[in-house]
């Protein structure tokens, strides 16, 4: 293999690795929205629990806003983590609580990141529909 060919191969390898590391810049997250017929406190707790289940560490916790971040992990190919997932709560009609779940992915390591919006909403729905066990 000639010097130029070797350089081309190495450049190709690094270009591929760079693509895997960075991924493709994703479109702006429109989030997923839902409404729960539950008290605000219960929905807030469900949001915190749901973020915990997907591996987030809670970074901000206000009465109407919860934000968590998934820890980055080095991997053999792409690794994972680094997403910031937020849940915004708002008063909806008829005493219900509206939620807006959004995932912010980073450019670096984007290939190993995923959109958690639906997973968080599903987990909140599951928790809020499960009756607490009797003591």
């Amino acid at each position, binding site marked *: *293999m000639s010097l130029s060919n070797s350089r081309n191969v190495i450049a190709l390898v690094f270009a591929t690795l760079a693509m895997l590391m960075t991924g493709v810049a994703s479109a702006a997250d429109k989030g997923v929205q839902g409404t729960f017929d539950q008290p605000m406190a219960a929905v807030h707790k469900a949001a915190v629990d749901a973020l915990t289940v997907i*591996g987030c560490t809670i970074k901000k916790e206000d009465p109407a806003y919860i934000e968590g971040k998934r820890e980055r992990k080095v991997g053999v190919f792409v690794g994972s*983590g680094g997403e910031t997932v937020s849940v915004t709560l708002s008063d909806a009609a008829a005493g219900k609580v509206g939620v807006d779940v959004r995932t912010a992915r980073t450019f670096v390591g984007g290939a190993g990141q995923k959109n958690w919006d639906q997973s968080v909403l599903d987990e909140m729905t599951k928790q809020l529909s499960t009756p607490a066990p009797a003591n």
Partner: protein
Amino acid sequence: MHLPCLGKVIGAVVALSVFGIAGGCATTQSRYEFLADHYPPHAADAPVEVFRSGIPQVPFKRIARLDVHLEKSGFVKPTFEEALPELEKQARQAGADAIIEIEERPSQILETMVLHVTATGARYVNDR
């Protein structure tokens, strides 16, 4: 540059990858959350009973939700046994005597294998 040199470069990349697997691409997160009343923690070496199924046969009260989240890259699956020490630690910090209603939720994100364990910390009504 000749082929043997390219081989060294590829070898170095593979070695770095293997080093990556062996060293620190696993994460653990955990927490407990009281369900209602707060209780003082137990000592770090206090016994905690673990019920993979069933519940204690003595009167108890559910006092805390316990969460342990493990992630490992390189297609290495985390196991419940790896989560157990952290689960017991969280139970002690919550003042629980037993861990019940354990739910394991394995999942995968590309090469990252995930295990989330949710459980309930139970406190015996009468002193042990």
